[in-house]
């Protein structure tokens, strides 16, 4: 079920009515939330709920054993079981076809005639998110960083909580499970703020991403031609805006919906396009994934505690795998590699050059960072390397006389919107939406709210899927 759909509005109203009706105990409310979460997921493809159940049961059992087991070998085995099941699901459903294609290509390259039948595997929506979330529980249990969930219901709800089930934020056990122990009820202000966040999230997704930017990005990346530099830049900038509004929109909706239930989810984005450098970017973009990768991959690989070479290797491996996490294609690996290289170069430069950041050089450095990020988006968006190569060449003004396919109004629309996005991120980089929204009089917020709702209604949209659902 998509947040930007009529069925979700009806679903949410029913859930809220049951949640706030004085007929259910807290345990019954949690059961209702769990059942609702399975319905939320199952309305997409009911049999795939079984994967959620398997992940839940395996990690619940593993967590329970890890809580009492002292034998190191046995503890390792329980952790291994959790990792094998979760990564096994991920490997089969997400990377099965990719591995088979590459295996076939490898055999063909060394002269072995082999043609594999495509496996036609369905990618379960949000599998990368919930497997990472549930794995974090067993890893934390193994490392004794979190307490065992008190009841199976609390744990199952942690794995399946519908607002963040299919596209995050990826929440740690200690941040979410403990919220289920005591009855939660949003205050009126919390509830209304949750509705406001849901409105902003839908506005970002429906109006900004789908209505104003997606067509330009799709036209440019689907053109199959060598394009004029202005068109290539317009398409890439449009995609940079689209993916931000799409994903940040989802996260904002998720946080808002959870808040309407009195549950607090962490921020997933902090105005990333105003980042100064790439370390800063990864503290602001998809925060729940970058902290997951830091804690469960980068630090176990050695982090920065074992010398510079090992740190750079750990950084590159983390970013390569982070790229692969986004999609089973080599273009995503290159996207991750570019980010890895940017991070390594930045650390090298930081050890040699010391710049005191002020407003003037800060915005220039943020602009430089954003420009470099756009080159990485090319590999994220392009389906083939040939498209990426042509786009990069056009963006670097190497292609002479590329074709013009983007109308002038669309160019103006994208450049104005992206400029506003960048300025807005710069202004907001050290503050929060709540702080800014609380300052003006109530009627101004009301007018903004009304305009957003009106634009959502007249955009309609045909229920475009969120980009990150495929990851």
């Amino acid at each position, binding site marked *: 079920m998509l947040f930007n759909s009529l069925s979700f509005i009806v679903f949410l109203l029913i859930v809220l009515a049951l949640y706030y009706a004085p007929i259910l105990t807290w345990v019954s409310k949690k059961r209702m939330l769990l059942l609702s979460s399975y319905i939320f997921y199952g*309305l997409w493809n009911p049999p795939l709920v079984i994967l959620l159940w398997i992940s839940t049961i395996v990690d619940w059992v593993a967590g329970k054993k890890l809580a009492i087991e002292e034998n190191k070998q046995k503890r390792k085995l329980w952790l291994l079981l959790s990792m094998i099941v979760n990564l096994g699901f991920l490997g089969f459903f997400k990377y099965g076809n990719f591995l088979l294609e590459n295996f076939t290509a490898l055999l063909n390259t060394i002269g072995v005639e082999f043609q594999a039948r495509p496996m036609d595997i369905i990618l379960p929506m949000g599998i990368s998110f919930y497997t990472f979330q549930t794995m974090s529980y067993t890893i934390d249990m193994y490392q004794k960083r979190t307490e065992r969930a008190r009841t199976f219901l609390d744990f199952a709800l942690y794995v399946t909580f519908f607002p963040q089930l299919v596209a995050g934020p990826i929440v740690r056990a200690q941040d979410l499970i403990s919220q289920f122990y005591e009855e939660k009820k949003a205050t*009126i202000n919390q509830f*209304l703020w949750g509705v*406001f966040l849901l409105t902003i999230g839908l506005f970002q997704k429906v109006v900004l991403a789908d209505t104003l930017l997606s067509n330009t990005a799709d036209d440019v990346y689907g053109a199959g031609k060598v394009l004029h530099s202005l068109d290539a830049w317009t398409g890439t900038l449009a995609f940079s805006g689209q993916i931000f509004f799409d994903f940040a929109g989802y996260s904002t909706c998720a946080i808002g919906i959870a808040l309407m239930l009195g549950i607090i989810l962490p921020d997933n984005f902090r105005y990333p396009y105003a980042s100064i450098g790439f370390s800063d970017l990864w503290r602001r973009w998809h925060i729940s994934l970058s902290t997951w990768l830091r804690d469960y991959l980068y630090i176990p690989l050695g982090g920065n505690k074992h010398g510079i070479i090992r740190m750079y290797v750990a950084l590159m491996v983390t970013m390569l795998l982070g790229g692969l996490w986004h999609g089973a294609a080599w273009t995503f690996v290159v996207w991750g590699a570019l980010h890895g290289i940017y991070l390594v170069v930045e650390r090298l430069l930081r050890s040699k050059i010391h710049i005191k950041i002020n407003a003037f050089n800060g915005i220039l450095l943020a602009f430089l960072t954003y420009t470099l990020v756009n080159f990485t988006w090319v590999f994220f968006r392009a389906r083939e390397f040939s498209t990426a190569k042509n786009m990069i060449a056009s963006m670097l003004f190497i292609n002479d006389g590329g074709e013009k396919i983007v*109308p002038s109004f669309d160019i103006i629309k994208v450049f104005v919107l992206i400029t506003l996005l960048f300025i807005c991120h710069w202004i907001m980089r050290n503050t929060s939406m709540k702080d800014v929204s609380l300052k003006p009089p*109530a009627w101004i*917020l009301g*007018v903004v709210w009304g305009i957003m709702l009106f634009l959502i209604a007249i955009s309609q949209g045909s229920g475009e899927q969120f980009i990150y659902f495929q990851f």
Partner: protein
Amino acid sequence: MNLKQSVLIGLLITVTALIAWEIYWRNQGFTATLDDNEALWAVQRAKVEKLSKEDVVLVGSSRIHFDIQLDQWEKKMGNKPIQLAAGGCSPLPVFHDIVNNSNFNGTILVGVTPGLFFSTTFPKAQPWAWPQARVDYFHNRTYAQQLNHLFSLPLQNSFAFISEVEGVDGINLKELLKKIHVNNRVIDPMPPFHTFEEIRLDRNVRMLKRMETDTAFANTVKKVWKFFMSGEGPPPDKVATMNFFLTDLEKFKARGGKVILLRCPSDGYLRDFENTVTPRATFWDELVQKANVPAYHFEDYSQLQNLTIPEWSHLTANDADIFTNEFLDILIKDQVLLTSNSN
């Protein structure tokens, strides 16, 4: 911060603005209508699974969609056929889907618009990709999508501004923005293409009255047909399309299914063009001879001629009623179809 005050103001603005927006578009001549989208099509396709041997399914492009009127059919035959035809589509992907992915063994009436039927089997070409997208949607639609469609119907039937129509008649925000042109950096050579039909829940389509009364409006559609005919599109792929169809046809016949071919009327410049690019003798006649199924070409029946085709391709609503009745009389006379009373 008084969020209660903010939310009240927000709701007031939204409701007021939406009422004004709705009134504005109604004053511009727009009405609340259904969208002929994949979800609406899929509901009809799903019904095929439950049909009996006596039932009829219509596949093809816009001509059979406009020209066969379901109410007239029901009145005369006692049951309503399933309408799966759609504008700009080759009938082959849908026919292929029914033959290969359902157990239906009743009658399929195939509308043969030569330029589309014989166009291509290339999956990415529009006459193939459009119907295939509908077929794929039907097979892959989720329960959530089915619910969305269900909930959207009362809204589509109530508000003019809720519309998925694309192009010159599109009034959602995305379509409105597409109409803003700053200069001629990129020129779209296609003339504006107006919507000239309205569709019902059962996908019955009727031509708008305006097409009969407003010659200038009809001419805008003629311009679009001329544009398509003047383009350097690929030539028809007679061999591949015919073979593809005949393979499915044999499979369908083998399980007891019956197929009827129908060539609906066309007129003027469009008919001349069709006669030049897809001459009857080498396309339609050859198809009929190879298919060996009941086949009806409007040119062979005086009662199917001299009807009003304002834009050369589709019948007016009243003449579509006449056409449907006359065509069914022919089928009954030939004992190709039996009325439910005679069953």
